């Protein structure tokens, strides 16, 4: 036990002093790890935000339940409550015949003179405007509402909504694909970098073996080195990303774009954690694997 602890102190000391003594290698490795993770992080941020936007779009989707003309106030009330009671409905707002006409006029804009005179005999129906919690439920909820007594028709811009949901789905798939590719590539780059660093010291590893060091005795400092390289690269990359993202937020917010981006603090903490884990893990595995062939003496 005592010996184990002693060894561990030695491993840590050794790992760090190797980093200090091979400065050129350390700098090159750390910047490469950082570079790879900056790329990964950049696109993670983009995709998280696109996802966030898609969510915002989805949450703005609504469906319209047109009511029959000959309903009493009470019946209308009852229908509203019934709709509210459906699972997945988040809000229900009533639109009278007059409000509908007003809206339509606004939509037509300069051509609104075409609707003049319709006020007396308004042909537009009264309706409930329903928002749903999950865009994908919109079709099911529409069907359910259609079954309610007093509801004439349900419309939710089937074409547009379905197309939109399709596009969002594609964006998510593409995003996931890109992130997966970037993930693999980052691993390749980081582990290659570590490998080249180990390669540069192949003879030292041999010598240690000849003196009677066990595989693990040699491996530990390299693992620690790999972990530290990965960790340093990861933390630096998170720093760079935080800076870049901060500037982007400033820029975007100053232009008042329709969508609002995820706040810095929301994303960066998780990213720091996962990148630190990822960096040190690949670092450790990278050195562990690449040291192997040089231990066989």
């Amino acid at each position, binding site marked *: 036990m005592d010996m184990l602890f002693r060894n561990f102190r030695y491993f840590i000391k050794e790992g760090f002093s190797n980093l200090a003594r091979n400065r050129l290698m350390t700098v090159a490795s750390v910047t490469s790890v950082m570079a790879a993770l900056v790329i990964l992080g950049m696109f993670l941020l983009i995709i998280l935000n696109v996802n966030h936007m898609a969510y915002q779009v989805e949450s703005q989707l609504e469906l319209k339940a047109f009511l029959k003309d000959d309903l009493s106030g009470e019946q209308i009330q009852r229908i509203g409550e019934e709709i509210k009671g459906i699972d997945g409905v988040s809000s229900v707002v009533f639109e009278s015949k007059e409000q509908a006409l007003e809206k339509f006029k606004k939509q037509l804009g300069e051509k609104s003179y075409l609707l003049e005179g319709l006020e007396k005999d308004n042909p537009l129906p009264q309706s409930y405007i329903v928002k749903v919690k999950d865009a994908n439920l919109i079709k099911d909820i529409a069907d359910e509402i259609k079954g309610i007594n007093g509801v004439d028709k349900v419309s939710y811009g089937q074409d547009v909504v379905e197309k939109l949901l399709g596009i969002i789905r594609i964006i998510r798939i593409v995003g996931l694909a890109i992130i997966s590719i970037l993930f693999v590539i980052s691993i390749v780059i980081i582990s290659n970098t570590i490998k080249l660093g180990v390669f540069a010291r192949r003879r*030292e590893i041999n010598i240690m073996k000849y*003196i*009677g*060091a*066990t595989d693990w005795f040699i491996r530990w400092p390299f693992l620690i080195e790999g972990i530290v390289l990965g960790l340093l690269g990861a933390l630096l990359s998170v720093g760079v990303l935080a800076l870049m993202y901060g500037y982007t937020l400033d820029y975007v917010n100053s232009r008042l774009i329709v969508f609002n981006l995820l706040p810095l603090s929301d994303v960066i903490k998780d990213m720091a954690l996962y990148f630190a884990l990822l960096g040190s893990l690949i670092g450790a595995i990278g050195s562990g694997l690449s040291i192997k062939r040089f231990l066989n003496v």
Partner: protein
Amino acid sequence: MIKFINVSKKYDKGIIALSNINFEIESGEFVFIVGPSGAGKSTLIKLLLKEEEPTSGTIIVNKKDITKMKRKEIPYLRRSMGVVFQDFRLLPNKTVFENVAFAMEVVGAHPKEIRRKVPMVLSLVGLSDKADQYPQQLSGGEQQRVALARAIVNEPSILIADEPTGNLDPDTSWEIVKLMAEINKRGTTVVMATHAKDIVDAMKKRVIALEKGNIVRDEARGVYGYAL
């Protein structure tokens, strides 16, 4: 202690470095291995350390057949021997002190023990004032003495030295050999491959002479040879 039974070693391209070697070294012996350049002396030592595998034959070290040894046991075999390599094999990124200390760290020695022992052996080989230098900042002879210091620091039961005086002047060479004789007197088996005719002739120890991979002579109180 050490026993070679019908040991042969062929390298690639049909190079026969050792052919059908048989000998036995008892515990506590002092043995010179001599022979011309390329005779197979270093190969013999590499086989002992399992740096190379024999093509055929059996090698026994400390009653164990090391040709059948598992990979995991090799480090412990190597620790049982202190070795001065012909090409020194010092770690370039470690100081003289650290190079010697490393051999102790490998066996899990206590830091206190390391701090006590390393300066001791460094002074034994006359390098106390070079403790903080890196190998590439040393003269050839100094590097060779660091290698020796590292070999003896763990007080191994077998000390193997491949040409440990090749870079040393006659005076220093003698001091080193006397040191090894001293260590031998305290019970350590010493195997020394060397070209130093004067030393071999004066020591009157057992001499195993190799030539082209064969043992041509094995004398209890031998001399280097008849040439020169």
